[in-house]
C-alpha cells in the first residue's frame, strides 16, 4: 500500500512540474502578442499562472497530507493541462515562425543570392573548365550588386579563372554587352531570363543564352529599419512591393493619416525610366530592375523619385498572394472584362510562371487566390492597360485589408499568417502591427461611420498613379531601340502634393469652409489623376531604322518606304501557294520575312530582301490589275496601238520575252491603214502572265514607207518627252537618245538630232535612218560638300547624291579616337556632281588590344 502511494506521489510531482514548465513556456509565447489586447492577455496570463500555482499547491498538499483523492485530482488536471499546453505551444510556435519570417525589424536578414555565368550563342564554352585563353568576362563594378559583383568575383578568385575583366554599371548594360559579343561571359542573377524577357526585342537574344555555371550563397542584407512613430497619431508612409522573380512587378506608395483616416495609394509603373539610387552616377534604368540589386535600392530610388521618406515597406511575392487569398476564403472583386489569366508558378517551377488556364469572369464575383492574382497581373485585356492593372491592384489591397479587419475567425487569421510567412517581408514591428489592427478595429466599432458602413465608411481611399509618356532609347551595340516609360514631371509633382498633404508636410489650412449639401446633387469624388501633362517630351533622337516589315507591311508599303531611301537595293522573293512558308492566312503581297532585322540603321544597309506572300491572281479581271503582279514586269501588255518606239522600249525591258515582229509596209495588201506606224495585232492576249508563255509573241506592225521629215520644229521644243514623241509618232524606228548637261542649252531642249545642231539650213532626216538625238539636261547641278563629323554623315551624303562611298580606315588602340574623322579628300565647298567621284574620308577605327 505504501509503495503504491509513493509511485503516485512521484507521478503527481512529476506531472505537476511538467505542467508548470510547459504552462510557463506557453505564457511567455502568448505574452509576445500581448500588445494586441494588453489588459485581457495579461489578466488571462495571470489567471493561468495562478492556476498552475494552485495545482502545484494542491499537489504538495495532497502528498504532505496523504490525500489520495487530491493526488488523483492533481494528476488528472496536470495531464489535461499538459495536453492543452502542448497543443497551444504548437499553435503559437507555428505562428511565431511565420511572424519571424515576415518581420525584419531587427534589420539583419539573410537572403540566398545566386550568380549565373551566362554565354551567348557560344558552343565552345560549356562550363568554367572550358575557360582558356582570351575570354572576356563582364561583371558589375559595384559591391551593392551581390550576384554580379560579390559572388561573381568570388567564383573567379576561388576557381583561379584567368579572364579579361570588363566592368559594367548595371545588369541592363551587361546583358546588352553579352548580346553584342563585347563580352563572352556575363555574371548575371540566375533569374536574368525572367528579368529581361518582358523587354521588347530581348526574347530572340535570350533564347540563345546558356548558363555555364551557378554559385549560391546566403548573404546578409540590410534594409531600412522601421520607424518609432505612434501610428495611431502620426501619418506614415509604406512602400508596397509586389515581387515576381526578384523583379518589382508592382510598386505602390501608400500613406496613412490617422487624423484624417485617409489612405493614399500611388502606383508607379514598373517600366518607369528613372535614376536608380544604387547605380553609379544615378544612371537611369527601369525602376523594376532596382530590386535585382537589393530591396534597399528600390526603397532609396522611390524616395528620390517622390521626394519623401519611406517609413515602412511590405514586400509580397506573387505566389504569396494566392496562398493568402485562399486562406482568407477568397475575395469579392470586380473585373470589367472576361479573360484567361496566367497560373501562378509553383515552388518547383523553374520559370516561376504557369500556363494560361485561370478563367476570370466579367462582373462582381467571388475570386479565389489564382483568380485574384491573375486580376492583379492582367494588363493586356484591361481597359487602360497597365493603369487598369494598377487600379485592380489597389482594389485588391483594399479588399484584403477589409477582409482581415472584419474577420473574427482565429483559425482563418492563423492560416493567413502562415500563408504570409514565407511570402511577405516587412519592417513593421509586431507591436506596430497590433497597434494598427487595434486602432482599425476600434475605429470600426466606435465611430458612427465605422459601425454603419464598415471599412468604406471610415477609411477614405485616394488612388492615383504616376503617369508618363512612352519613349525610346537606342542601343548601339544591339542595334535596337528599347521602349521606356518616362514619368511626367507634372505627375510626380501632383502625386507628391497629394502625399505631402496626407503626411501634413508643408500643408496649411485653406480656410475655405464650404458646407452646402443637396441630396439632389449628391457628392461625386472629383479627385482625378491626369493622364497627360502639357510638358515637353524629351525623346532621344532615334536614327532612321529598318522597321518590322513583317508586322503588317505590304509590298507596296515597302516600296513607299524605300522611296526616301534610294540607296537600299530591294530584292523580292515571292512565296506562292504550295511553296514552303506560304500560308493561306497571309494577305496577297504581305511581307512575311525580311533579311535585315528590325532596328538596324538604314544608313548601314545596302541590300534588303523581303519575302512576299503571293496568292493566285487573274490579271484579265480588272479588279486584280491594281496588284503589283499585274504590272508591266509580269504580264503581256496590250501591244495593239503601240508605236514602234514603245514596242522597242518594251522589248528592251523584257529581254527574256521573244517577240516576232512582222513589219507590214503600206504597199502590202495586209497593211491596216487604221494603225499607221502602230501595232495592229498580237498573238497572245493582253494580261497573260509572262511566266505562262510557251513560245514567242507574234506582232504585226504597220509601217508607212520611209519619208523625209524636217527637224526645224524640234529645235523649238522645250520638253524632252515632246521630242521623243515626235520621233515615235512619225514612224522613226531607229532612234537613240542621250541626255547631257549643257550650260548653253536649257533643260529639255534639243542639242542635236541626226547630226544637226540647229534649225538653220532646213535639216531633214528619213524615217528609215538611224538617228542619234541629244537632249539637254540643263546646267550640271552643284552640290555643297560639308565638313563631315561622323562616318554616318559621309555615308548618308553619298547615298543621297548617288555616289559610291570610299572610307579608308586607320586602326588605333585608343578607344577615345574611334569613329573620329582624320581627313576628307575634298574640303568643304560647292562642287559639280561629276567632280565628286573621288570623294573619300579617312577614319580612325578602334581595334582594341590583340585584335586584328
Amino acid at each position: 500500500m505504501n509503495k503504491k502511494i509513493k509511485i503516485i506521489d512521484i507521478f503527481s510531482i512529476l506531472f505537476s512540474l511538467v505542467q508548470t514548465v510547459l504552462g510557463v513556456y506557453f505564457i511567455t509565447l502568448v505574452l509576445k502578442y500581448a500588445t494586441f489586447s494588453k489588459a485581457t492577455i495579461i489578466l488571462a496570463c495571470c489567471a493561468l499562472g495562478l492556476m498552475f500555482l494552485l495545482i502545484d499547491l494542491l499537489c504538495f498538499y495532497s502528498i504532505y497530507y496523504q490525500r489520495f483523492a487530491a493526488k488523483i485530482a492533481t494528476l488528472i488536471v496536470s495531464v489535461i493541462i499538459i495536453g492543452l499546453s502542448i497543443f497551444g505551444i504548437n499553435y503559437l510556435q507555428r505562428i511565431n515562425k511565420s511572424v519571424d519570417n515576415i518581420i525584419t525589424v531587427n534589420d539583419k536578414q539573410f537572403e540566398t543570392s545566386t550568380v549565373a555565368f551566362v554565354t551567348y550563342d557560344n558552343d565552345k564554352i560549356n562550363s568554367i573548365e572550358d575557360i582558356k585563353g582570351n575570354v572576356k568576362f563582364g561583371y558589375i563594378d559595384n559591391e551593392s550588386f551581390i550576384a554580379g559583383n560579390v559572388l561573381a568575383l568570388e567564383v573567379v578568385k576561388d576557381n583561379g579563372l584567368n579572364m579579361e575583366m570588363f566592368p559594367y554599371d548595371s545588369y541592363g548594360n551587361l546583358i546588352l554587352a553579352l548580346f553584342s559579343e563585347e563580352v563572352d561571359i556575363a555574371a548575371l542573377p540566375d533569374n536574368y531570363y525572367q528579368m529581361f524577357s518582358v523587354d521588347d526585342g530581348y526574347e530572340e537574344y535570350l533564347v540563345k543564352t546558356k548558363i555555364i555555371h551557378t554559385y549560391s550563397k546566403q548573404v546578409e542584407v540590410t534594409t531600412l529599419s522601421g520607424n518609432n512613430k505612434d501610428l495611431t497619431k502620426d501619418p506614415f508612409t509604406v512602400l508596397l512591393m509586389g515581387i515576381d522573380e526578384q523583379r518589382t512587378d508592382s510598386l505602390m506608395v501608400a500613406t496613412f493619416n490617422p487624423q484624417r483616416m485617409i489612405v493614399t495609394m500611388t502606383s508607379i509603373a514598373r517600366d518607369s525610366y528613372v535614376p536608380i539610387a544604387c547605380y553609379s552616377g544615378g544612371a537611369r534604368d527601369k525602376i523594376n530592375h532596382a530590386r535585382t540589386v537589393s530591396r534597399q535600392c528600390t526603397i532609396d530610388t522611390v524616395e528620390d523619385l517622390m521626394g519623401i521618406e519611406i517609413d515602412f515597406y511590405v514586400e509580397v511575392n506573387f505566389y504569396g498572394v494566392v496562398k493568402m487569398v485562399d486562406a482568407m476564403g477568397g475575395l469579392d472583386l470586380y473585373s470589367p472584362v472576361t479573360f484567361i489569366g496566367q497560373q501562378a508558378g509553383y515552388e518547383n517551377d523553374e520559370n516561376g510562371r504557369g500556363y494560361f488556364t485561370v478563367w476570370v469572369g466579367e462582373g462582381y464575383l467571388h475570386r479565389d487566390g489564382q483568380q485574384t492574382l491573375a486580376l492583379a497581373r492582367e494588363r493586356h485585356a484591361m481597359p487602360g492597360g497597365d493603369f487598369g492593372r494598377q487600379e485592380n491592384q489597389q482594389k485588391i489591397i483594399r479588399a484584403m485589408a477589409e477582409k482581415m479587419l472584419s474577420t473574427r475567425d482565429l483559425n482563418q487569421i492563423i492560416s493567413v499568417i502562415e500563408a504570409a510567412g514565407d511570402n511577405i517581408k516587412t519592417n513593421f514591428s509586431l507591436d506596430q502591427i497590433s497597434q494598427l489592427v487595434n486602432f482599425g478595429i476600434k475605429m470600426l466599432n466606435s465611430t458612427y461611420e465605422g459601425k454603419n458602413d464598415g471599412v468604406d465608411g471610415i477609411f477614405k481611399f485616394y488612388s492615383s498613379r504616376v503617369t508618363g509618356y512612352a519613349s525610346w532609347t537606342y542601343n548601339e551595340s544591339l542595334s535596337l531601340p528599347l521602349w521606356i516609360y518616362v514619368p511626367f514631371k507634372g505627375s510626380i509633382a501632383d502625386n507628391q502634393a497629394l502625399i505631402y498633404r496626407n503626411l501634413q508636410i508643408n500643408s496649411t489650412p485653406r480656410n475655405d469652409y464650404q458646407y452646402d449639401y443637396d441630396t439632389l446633387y449628391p457628392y461625386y469624388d472629383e479627385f482625378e489623376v491626369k493622364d497627360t501633362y502639357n510638358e515637353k517630351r524629351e525623346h532621344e533622337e532615334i536614327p532612321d531604322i529598318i522597321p518590322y516589315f513583317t508586322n503588317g507591311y505590304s509590298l507596296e508599303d515597302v516600296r513607299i518606304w524605300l522611296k526616301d531611301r534610294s540607296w537600299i537595293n530591294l530584292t523580292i522573293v515571292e512565296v506562292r501557294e504550295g511553296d514552303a512558308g506560304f500560308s493561306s492566312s497571309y494577305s496577297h503581297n504581305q511581307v512575311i520575312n525580311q533579311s535585315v532585322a528590325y532596328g538596324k540603321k538604314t544608313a548601314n544597309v545596302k541590300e534588303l530582301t523581303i519575302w512576299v506572300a503571293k496568292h493566285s491572281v487573274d490579271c484579265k479581271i480588272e479588279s486584280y490589275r491594281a496588284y503589283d503582279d499585274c504590272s508591266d514586269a509580269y504580264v503581256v501588255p496590250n501591244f495593239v496601238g503601240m508605236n514602234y518606239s514603245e514596242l522597242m522600249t518594251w522589248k528592251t525591258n523584257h529581254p527574256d520575252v521573244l517577240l516576232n515582229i512582222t513589219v507590214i509596209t503600206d504597199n502590202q495588201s495586209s497593211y491596216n491603214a487604221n494603225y499607221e506606224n502602230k501595232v495592229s495585232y498580237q498573238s497572245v492576249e493582253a494580261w497573260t502572265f509572262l511566266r505562262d508563255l510557251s513560245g514567242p509573241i507574234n506582232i504585226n506592225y504597220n509601217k508607212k514607207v520611209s519619208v523625209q521629215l524636217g527637224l526645224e520644229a524640234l529645235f523649238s521644243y522645250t520638253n524632252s518627252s515632246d521630242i521623243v514623241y515626235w520621233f515615235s509618232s512619225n514612224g522613226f524606228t531607229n532612234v537613240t537618245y542621250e541626255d547631257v548637261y549643257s550650260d548653253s542649252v536649257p533643260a529639255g531642249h534639243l542639242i542635236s538630232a541626226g547630226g544637226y545642231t540647229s534649225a538653220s539650213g532646213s535639216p531633214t532626216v528619213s524615217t528609215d535612218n538611224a538617228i542619234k538625238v541629244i537632249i539637254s539636261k540643263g546646267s550640271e547641278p552643284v552640290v555643297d560638300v560639308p565638313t563631315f563629323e561622323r562616318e554616318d554623315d559621309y555615308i548618308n551624303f553619298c547615298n543621297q547624291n548617288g555616289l559610291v562611298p570610299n572610307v579608308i580606315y586607320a586602326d588605333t588602340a585608343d578607344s577615345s579616337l574611334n569613329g573620329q574623322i582624320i581627313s576628307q579628300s575634298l574640303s568643304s565647298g560647292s562642287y559639280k556632281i561629276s567632280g565628286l567621284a573621288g570623294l573619300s574620308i579617312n577614319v580612325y577605327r578602334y581595334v582594341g588590344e590583340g585584335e586584328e
Partner: protein
Amino acid sequence: MKKNKKSRRVFQILMLVLLNVLVVCILLAIINLKKQANQTDDNTNVESNGLYVAPSNMTDYQKELYEELSVIVSNIKDIENEDLSDLSASVAKNFIADYFSWGNKRGSYDIGGIDFVYGPYHNNFAFNARDYFYNDLDLILNQYGSENLPLVDNIVIDSVEKQDEKYLVSILVHDYTNDTDYYEDNYYDAYLVKAHWDYKIPTDSSFDLSKFPTNGNLMMVLRDGRIELGYFHEKWIRELGDE
C-alpha cells in the same frame, strides 16, 4: 496533531485565496474583452432615443438639444399624420449643433450630425464633408488644439414651413447583375427650417471664426418614420420639383 491541523488549515486557506484571485482574474479578463468589443473613446455607451442615435462626445448644449429631441420623439403618436414642425426644428438644431462644432472632434473623419442626414446618403454626406468643410480639420487641430476651436451655441429657429409640394430625391442605384446605373425617384413630405446661431470659443483663441456660417436653410424630409436632412444651404435656392 494540533500543528498538523493548523498547517492544513493554512494550506486550505491559501488555496481558497488563490482560487478566488484566479476567478477574479478570469472575470476581469472577460469583462475587458467585452468592453473592447464595444469600445468608444469617451467610454460612454451608444445612446438612442428610438429614432436618433446621440452624437458622440456631446457638449452640454448638445445634451440639452438631444434631450429636447428625445421628449418630442416620445410624444409622437402617428408620425405620418401629425404636424412635424417641432420635430423638424429639433432635428435641424441637433444637426447644426453637431456638424458645426469642431471643439469636440477627433479628426477630419469625425463628421458631426450624420445620423440626422437623409439615410441612403450618410456615406455620401460624410465624404462630401471630408472633402470640404472638414477637409483641413486635422491641420487645424494640430495648429490650435481642440480646446480653442468653436462649439455651436444658442441656435434660434426663425421659421418652419411645411412644404405644399413633396421634396424630390433621386438616388443613383447600381444594378450589379446587369452592371448598369439608374436613378430612382423618391418624393417626401418636407419642412423648410430657417435658423441662425452663435459659437462659443475661448476668448484667447486665435482661430478665425469669421468664415464660419451663422445661419442656414435646412429642408427636413420625412423618410421611413424619421425626419432627416435633405438639403442645407445658406439660402433656399432651389424650387421644389426642379431637377
